[in-house]
């Protein structure tokens, strides 16, 4: 299924354009491939933060790796600043990598334990042959200041840092080559709550200072709501809903988005607590996604049509796209439970 582009034509050119992206992992010996990403298209506009939210098997991490050119797509194309990544020669590819950088989830695993902090941060500059040793070191120290660590961290080793400090070093390193696009893959998931808050605040500041455009991958709705200007909800390899942050968080149209919002942990006092029946069923395997709409096996609104026909990608509100046969019923914002129809008989 290849939904049409998730955004309407823009005045400004998108920094990243992904078209009909599919990533299938071969499992060998006549077995069906693992369809990690199965038909995703979107644009990343300058200055925005697109939050991609999803659970396991959604393919969001694979998507992140494709955007930073770490993973080859099986189908579809990725354009970076107007250039099709598939057509780039190795040298041009290396230069293109300056434009997109990534920060990963595990702060410790991402840092070479034998290198001091300033060398770690300056390493991308060395690889991209920017400047000399002295200027690289100065740049590293400056970045340390920007991530609120300070110059005295320059000589330390990763094992001498806390989790939050390591993640700041990772961020500094990612910014060393002054990328235009930053991809963050679950960057706060491994951190304690108060440390997480510090990183998220830092991130917002850096976004402004560096004029970053960001693809922010997370499973945490609260985090997405805090950092994103636009939100894409991913399920089993495809987007099910994309829209502005307020649209998706406050007035979701897709039943999965609504289920995520209801399930998301929130410290809510009893007076405001509403009893929700949690979403039933397990996440299907990406090896054999359900026919038609992938979400139908767990969807409280599923009807026969959902098994037979893949839902079309429709723009139901300006800037908000959904792939659901019954999404229009949610336009007036009534709660999910009211509209429950018996789920489709076939699993």
């Amino acid at each position, binding site marked *: 299924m290849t939904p049409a582009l998730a955004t309407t034509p823009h005045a400004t050119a998108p920094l990243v354009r992904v078209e009909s992206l599919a990533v299938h992992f071969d499992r060998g010996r006549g077995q069906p491939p693992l369809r990690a990403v199965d038909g995703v298209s979107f644009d990343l506009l300058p200055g925005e933060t697109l939050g991609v939210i999803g659970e396991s098997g959604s393919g969001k991490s694979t998507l992140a790796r494709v955007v930073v050119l770490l993973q080859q797509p099986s189908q579809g194309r990725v354009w970076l600043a107007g250039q099709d990544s598939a057509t780039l020669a190795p040298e041009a590819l290396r230069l293109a990598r300056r434009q997109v950088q990534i920060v990963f989830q595990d702060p410790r695993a991402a840092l070479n334990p034998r290198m001091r902090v300033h060398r770690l941060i300056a390493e991308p500059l060395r690889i991209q042959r920017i400047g000399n040793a002295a200027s690289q070191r100065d740049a590293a120290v400056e970045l340390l200041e920007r991530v609120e660590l300070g110059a005295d961290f320059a000589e330390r080793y990763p094992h001498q840092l806390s989790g939050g400090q390591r993640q700041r070093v990772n961020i500094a390193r990612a910014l060393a080559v002054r990328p235009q696009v930053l991809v963050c893959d679950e960057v706060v998931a491994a951190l304690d709550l108060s440390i997480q808050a510090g990183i998220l605040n830092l991130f917002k500041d850096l976004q402004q200072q560096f004029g970053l455009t960001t693809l922010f991958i997370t499973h945490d709705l609260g985090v997405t*709501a805090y950092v994103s200007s636009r939100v894409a909800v991913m399920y089993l390899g495809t987007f099910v809903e994309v829209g502005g*942050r307020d649209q998706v968080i406050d007035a979701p149209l897709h039943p999965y988005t609504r289920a995520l919002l209801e399930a998301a942990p929130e410290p809510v006092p009893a007076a405001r607590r509403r009893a*929700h029946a*949690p*979403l039933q069923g397990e996440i299907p395997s990406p090896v054999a996604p359900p026919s038609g709409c992938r979400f139908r096996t767990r969807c409280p609104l599923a009807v026969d049509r959902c098994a037979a026909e893949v839902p079309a990608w429709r723009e139901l509100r300006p800037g908000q796209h959904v792939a659901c046969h019954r999404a229009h019923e949610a336009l007036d914002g009534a709660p999910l439970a009211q509209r429950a129809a018996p789920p489709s008989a076939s699993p």
Partner: protein
Amino acid sequence: MDAVKVTEAAPCQPAERAPVLSVRGLAIATRGGVQVTRDVSFDLQPGERVRVVGESGCGKTATGLAVLGLLPSGLTVAGGEVRFHGDNLLNLPEAALNRIRGRRVSMIFQEPMSALDPVFTIGRQLSETLRAHHRVGPREAKERCIDALDAVGIPLPRQRYDEYPFQLSGGMRQRAMIAIATICQPEVLIADEATTALDVTIQAQIIELLGRLSEQHRMALLFISHDLGAVASACNRLLTMYAGEIVEDAPLDDALLRPRHPYTAGLLAAIPRRQQGSGQAGHRLLSIAGRVPRPGAMPEGCRFAPRCVHVQPRCHEGPVSLLATGRGAAARCLRIDQLALGGVAA
């Protein structure tokens, strides 16, 4: 050296019935003598659901393990008692403790894949628990186990009975773990980060299941978690731990709306919320300055004082006890009468 003052406010609910679990002054230390937790005191009433929250290193997991005598080899109980219906579990011989474990007090853990034995079937692991504590024949045990698997929401339980852990998904494995832990209908279930490794929608299912089991069997729940946000359901009371101590003990809504300890308030303000205006420019999450003190390098006075925005000179003078804040709640702060801390919006 430490003035351990256990207040009369430690039991949070007014004690109408005798608590099923009563922890007093529990202190855990490494074998080298470094203190990990101290002065941990709380009561658990029958059927009550208590959540213990704190960030990594606060000692909440060690506390849960200590109740059942499951501390790893590097840690040991340095003092205090854990009374289960009056008996101190810490003094029981191994054989007597084994009659309580899995049968009257159970525990489930974070990673269901590594918590289940990979070379035995689910059914075998379930029935051996049942048969270890009750005289049940193999055939009847199997039937009861299949019923137990069904009761925790595992579809096709008869088929799953003969399957191995690696053949189940994460959510199913955790359900199997819950079945194993509850098959003898214990009075207390300790859940140590039991939903942390699961997806959000599966997490909601498991929390709902635990709440349901707790109500059906009047099973008290001690839910240990670092996720302060996941308290929406299945919880009556909140215990907050910091640097090895309980710093606040309050009914859930009180803790959320009117926290009495600056650390609790700080945690609540650090949670990214999704209400309107959350992401706007100018709104910032509170990031508590500083770092958790290392075990062995604890401050002399209030352990949170170096990071507290409401600190006063007297906070550094000596250790602070849990002080009653009314309605059975308590907080470890000298300024409870002076501070009006903000919580989540009502």
